[in-house]
């Protein structure tokens, strides 16, 4: 039987404005990936369809690829184009 888990998704800056919120907690079936979480977010969260399909992302405070695997309790962040300095 597939394992269930929870991931916390953080949205920042313009992405938070688009989605109308800065975080969401998703129940997921493991194994899963960053790409799958973004797909679900865009489908299930009102307004989130306008988020890009392939944004820059981070998992647990480090930049991550879309095919990175996720584990129960991971923190996934969707990062708009970086603009520090």
């Amino acid at each position, binding site marked *: 039987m597939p394992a269930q888990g929870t991931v916390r998704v953080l949205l*920042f800056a313009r992405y938070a*404005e688009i989605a109308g919120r800065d975080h969401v907690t998703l129940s997921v079936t493991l194994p899963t990936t960053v790409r799958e979480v973004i797909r679900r977010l865009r489908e299930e969260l009102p307004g989130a369809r306008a988020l890009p399909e392939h944004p820059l992302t981070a998992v647990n405070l*480090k930049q991550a690829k879309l095919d990175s695997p996720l584990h129960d309790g991971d923190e996934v962040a969707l990062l*708009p*184009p*970086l*603009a*520090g*300095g």
Partner: protein
Amino acid sequence: MPFLTRNPISIDLLLREVAAPECGGTCVFLGTVRAGPDEGGVMAIEYSAYESMVEAEIERILADVCERWPHARAVLRHRLGTIPVGEASIAIVAAAPHRADAFEICRYLIEAVKQRLPIWKKESRVDGSTIWVDPAGRAAAAGPR
């Protein structure tokens, strides 16, 4: 000290942090909020960040600097919140035994900040509009007025 601050940046404090008898060259880089003639009347920029990731990533960046320039010292601060035109959003201070390394470290650090740190800026303009800015300095999308 944390890399991020919501207060004006004290250059004197940063200079004191890197000062060392063995360092004969010190470079200071300041990034300031700009209102150029083609930028639609910028009054201020509001900076926000994924703060916990920024602090983790800056530690990794400074570890890279330590490894590459073991005899140098570097410190930097980035300001968050609303910063008016002319004030510094970032300050980098690098001290090394010789000037070439101090210049190079400053350049290395500002490029790393721009490429690796999750920080965002939203311009406030004289007409009351706000605009997210992308890394190349172009407007990304109009925000709510």
